[in-house]
């Protein structure tokens, strides 16, 4: 393996520079600058050997959603939002994954040896599985986002954590629900399932069989390890692209039934308007710029990589556009890596900031051709049909961020 000609020339040139002694001084000076620190050394304790932890200089944390205490005085409200402003890539670390409970901040502490999943109702063969048996079945590993129905930005929010933090994305591993349903043998007329968990209210959701048989996953793995207790250890249901409350945690029971059951969770999200019901079930195409975003400070004019997340319950993200002039003109952003179906997708745009006040927006299109609307477009759609002036269902409207000439970034929802 000889040195390539150009490399050899480089080597010879550097040799000459070193010999001259002039460049050597410059290199040494730069290197001594780089070698300042570290501040201290982290001792390799048994704890750190077994299960590492992040740097003490990294302080990104989740916050209670909606400005309410979580848990509240009753211990009832427990909705916590992910710090999307600090996110890189598309995976939300398990410790920072957003969370909501149907009621209560007390998370079940379940011994997986004792946990069981029962499938019964309108099936030929009712079945009860141990965790070990579930892990013996053919598995899938897929990237999917989950988003809470309450992930709705308003003008009082300051940061992207407040406007959009009730969504996260993880790599999920488990058995397709269809595998289990086929094993049990769904009978004619079994058009719905009721999925039930073991939290203190035994929360349950009704899910249509068309979705249950399509791509739902009974998950025991998350981001390369066991599902975390706050995410449903040892077993949770994933209903890709559908509203968060359907993704039942601490899953213990699937009952195949002939009708929508109006369960505890179903009543919690009862809607009066059929458009709201449809637009709330599957998440529409949605995106948000995470950098620069509200509360952040640009140090000065010059180059920035604008970065954000896009997702859709309708499938993969096919296009993301960015506007730096408040929606007046749009350019295509670059989609980073693979755009997985029903998964957060990272987009970026190279941007030279001229130091002038401006407004940044992003707009997502999914494989179905659905396009993320501005708030005005969504409202106009309904008012032109004689309906009230509001965004129906899950709010997927465009998030505007205003960059002031001093580099401060602000929520620009009017």
């Amino acid at each position, binding site marked *: 393996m000889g040195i390539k000609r150009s490399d050899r020339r480089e080597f010879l040139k550097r040799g000459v520079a070193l010999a001259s002694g002039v460049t050597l001084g410059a290199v040494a000076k730069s290197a001594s600058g780089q070698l300042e620190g570290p501040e201290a050394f982290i001792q390799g304790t048994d704890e750190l050997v077994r299960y590492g932890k992040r740097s003490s200089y990294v302080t990104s944390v989740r916050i209670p959603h909606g400005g309410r205490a979580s848990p509240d005085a009753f211990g009832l409200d427990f909705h916590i939002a992910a710090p999307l402003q600090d996110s890189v890539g598309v995976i939300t670390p398990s410790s920072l994954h957003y969370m909501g409970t149907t009621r209560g901040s007390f998370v079940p502490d379940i011994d997986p040896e004792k946990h069981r999943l029962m499938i019964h109702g309108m099936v030929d063969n009712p079945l009860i599985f141990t965790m070990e048996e579930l892990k013996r079945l053919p598995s899938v590993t897929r990237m999917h986002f989950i988003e809470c129905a309450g992930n709705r930005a308003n003008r009082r929010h300051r940061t992207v954590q407040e406007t959009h933090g009730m969504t996260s994305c993880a790599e999920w591993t488990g058995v397709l629900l269809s595998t289990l349903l086929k094993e049990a043998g769904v009978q004619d007329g*079994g058009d719905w399932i009721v999925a039930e968990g073991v939290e203190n209210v035994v929360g349950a959701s009704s899910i249509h069989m068309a979705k249950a048989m399509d791509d739902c996953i009974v998950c025991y793995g998350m981001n390369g390890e066991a599902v975390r207790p706050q995410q449903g250890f040892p077993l949770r249901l994933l209903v890709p692209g559908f509203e968060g409350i359907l993704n039942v945690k601490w899953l213990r029971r699937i009952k195949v039934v002939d009708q929508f059951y109006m369960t505890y969770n179903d009543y919690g999200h009862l809607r009066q308007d059929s458009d709201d019901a449809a637009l709330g079930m599957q998440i529409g195409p949605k995106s948000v710029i995470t950098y620069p975003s509200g509360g952040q400070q640009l140090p000065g004019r010059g180059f920035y990589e604008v970065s954000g997340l896009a997702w859709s319950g309708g499938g993969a993200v096919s296009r993301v556009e960015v506007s730096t002039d408040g929606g007046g003109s749009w350019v295509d952003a670059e989609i980073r890596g693979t755009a997985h179906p029903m998964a957060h997708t990272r987009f970026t745009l190279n941007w030279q900031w001229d130091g002038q006040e401006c407004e940044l927006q992003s707009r997502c299109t999914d494989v179905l051709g*659905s396009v993320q609307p501005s708030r005005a477009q969504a409202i106009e759609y309904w008012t032109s049909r004689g309906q009230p002036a509001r965004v129906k269902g899950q709010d997927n409207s465009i998030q505007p961020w205003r960059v002031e000439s001093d580099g401060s970034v602000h929520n620009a929802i009017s």
Partner: protein
Amino acid sequence: MRFLRLLLPLPLMLGISVQAQSPTYGLGRTPSAEEIRAWDISISPTGEELPAGSGSVGEGSQLYLEKACAGCHGTTGTGGPAPRLVKRDVGPDAGPWALGRVLPIRAPYATAVWDFINRGMPLYQEGTLTADEVYALTAYLLFLNDVVEEGTVLDAQSLPKVEMPNRDTWAPLPEWWRPGMSRLPSYPY
């Protein structure tokens, strides 16, 4: 995508349940009837899962105090720190959605009220009420909201027959949805 949609199993496209099959993997075991009964607590609108037992409005009014419901929900079903349990006074012509987010009036089915109390109350002592007690408390809350008469006794037969004012004025989840469809085909966003 259009091509992929054509490849979907025909029964799914037609909205028909997949025909039962025999097990492929042979894992898991058959649960006993007792195991199923113990966990089978989600009550359908038609009430198949309701257990035996009964309870009256009068018994419910006593239990409401004895089981400390009043401590959180208020002695009259309102005024406590927990969600109110009596409808708002918005006049005789108000539709069910104007009466507030109040379970024993907004729930489209009385079975949902029974189910909610049975699985969710009392706070931190969930699952401790007997079936008789849940029937009685359900009867009392429905009486407080003028849904049933004072002399009402509820059981597995009578509960599903109670006509709730919101029975036909709520929006069901779309049953037309199939994989690969947008969330509302007429809506471009």
